[in-house]
């Protein structure tokens, strides 16, 4: 019994400290994450968007070369990085353009162009938008990669707090039925019950959303590993070649990729010299047709001078893991009902965080440590400290 109580004391200590360190940041993440679940709807509500003129079904698509060319009409000095098929609007294409090929794509501007007429639609400055500010706070607190990795560390502590929370849940529930809520007791007892019950029913969702969030903070590193690993391998014979002097047609490159993967459709094209390609290739990233395979991309590398397919491979497991962890974090893969469920679960998580914080402050005030309460409740047959 002494061994058990010592180990419980350790788990209690772990739960306390992992929680204390991450709680403020987790509160910030839960609060900024809440509007991000609905960022499409919020943007739509707050900002006007130039819509592509509706076309009759079967209208042929404009040449992608023209689409890309037209995207630069208002920013002639800039260079296209990526050509993206708008997942929400089949009538529009998005072109991500940067100041130079070396510029970080994070600072790129998104130009929207009609997919059928190649007409320039708009290139709104999103950096002042409410959703953009929430996104920056949520992903890196305006502190770049270090900010991301720091929040990732907080996410790991959150996962540690959840797992140690499961362990300390047992002793505090020894004599209580599942779902106990002692509504007539002191606030500290009520809030302990709220913390325990909402924590344990959300445990798997919080773990999954927390950990996939951590994985997302490693996105830049994962992409770097892929760049210097698989991508470098696939383009080894082109290593020392300069950018193509007379680039071949983008439209033709995409057709070649579709022919090579007839059961997939293009998600985006990375142009030569950008982070997702070599200096000599159009990398056409193909996606599958089911919700799951639509997240898993397969790059087809097309020589940007000859227009020939040189290689096409499935992405390595670590990139696939990143791609799968994104929807699991965002909750954007099951329609509006799933988004609403995601939002409510997020709010209940805030409740778990606040009740946990309160319990810690309250117990400190009372001069009783968390470990102590846990151990008392487990080991003694007397009334636990917090039933009065």
């Amino acid at each position, binding site marked *: 019994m002494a061994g058990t109580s010592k180990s419980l004391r350790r788990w209690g200590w772990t739960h306390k400290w992992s929680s204390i360190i991450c709680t403020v940041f987790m509160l910030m993440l839960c609060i900024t994450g809440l509007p991000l679940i609905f960022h499409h709807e919020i943007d739509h509500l707050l900002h006007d968007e130039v819509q592509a003129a509706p076309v009759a079904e079967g209208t042929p698509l404009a040449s992608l070369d023209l689409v890309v060319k037209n995207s630069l009409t208002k920013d002639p000095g800039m260079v296209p990085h990526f050509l993206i098929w708008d997942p929400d609007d089949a009538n529009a294409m998005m072109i991500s353009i940067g100041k130079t090929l070396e510029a970080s794509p994070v600072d790129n501007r998104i130009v929207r162009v009609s997919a059928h007429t190649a007409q320039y639609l708009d290139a709104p400055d999103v950096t002042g938008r409410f959703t953009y500010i929430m996104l920056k706070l949520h992903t890196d607190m305006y502190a770049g990669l270090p900010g991301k990795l720091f929040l990732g560390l907080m996410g790991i502590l959150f996962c540690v707090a959840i797992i140690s929370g499961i362990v300390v849940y047992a002793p505090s529930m020894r004599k209580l039925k599942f779902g106990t809520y002692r509504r007539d007791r002191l606030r500290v007892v009520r809030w302990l019950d709220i913390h325990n*019950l909402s924590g344990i029913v959300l*445990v798997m969702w919080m773990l999954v959303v927390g950990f996939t969030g951590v994985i997302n903070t490693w996105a830049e590193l994962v992409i770097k590993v892929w760049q210097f690993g698989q991508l470098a391998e696939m383009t080894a014979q082109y290593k020392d070649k300069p950018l193509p002097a007379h680039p071949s047609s983008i439209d033709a490159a995409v057709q070649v990729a579709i022919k090579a993967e007839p059961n997939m459709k293009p998600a985006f094209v990375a142009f030569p010299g950008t982070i997702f390609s070599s200096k000599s290739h159009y990398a056409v990233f193909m996606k599958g047709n*089911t919700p*799951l395979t639509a*997240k898993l991309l397969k790059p087809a590398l097309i020589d940007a001078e000859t227009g020939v397919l040189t290689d096409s491979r499935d992405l390595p497991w670590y990139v696939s893991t990143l791609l799968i962890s994104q929807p*699991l974090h965002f909750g954007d*893969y099951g329609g509006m009902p*799933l988004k609403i469920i995601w939002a*409510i679960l997020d709010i209940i998580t805030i409740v778990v965080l606040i009740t946990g914080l309160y319990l810690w402050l309250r117990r400190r005030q009372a001069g009783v440590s968390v470990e102590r309460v846990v151990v008392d409740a487990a080991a003694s047959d007397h009334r636990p400290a917090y039933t009065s």
Partner: protein
Amino acid sequence: MKPAPRPRRQTNGQIFAIPALLGVLSIIGLVSALVGDGVWDGVSWVTLAIPILLCEYFFLRRS
């Protein structure tokens, strides 16, 4: 009035039976909408709504 009988100490198995079931249901819900649309989304909505309904039931019921 008789005092309520002292509740029996529960084993870990008893304590974690329902939470384990809820955990499995959450996993099913999280994966389901990834796998397909339509019915798969529906499974996801139902299973992930269970924790919310449980919170509502236990915290808001009048007894």
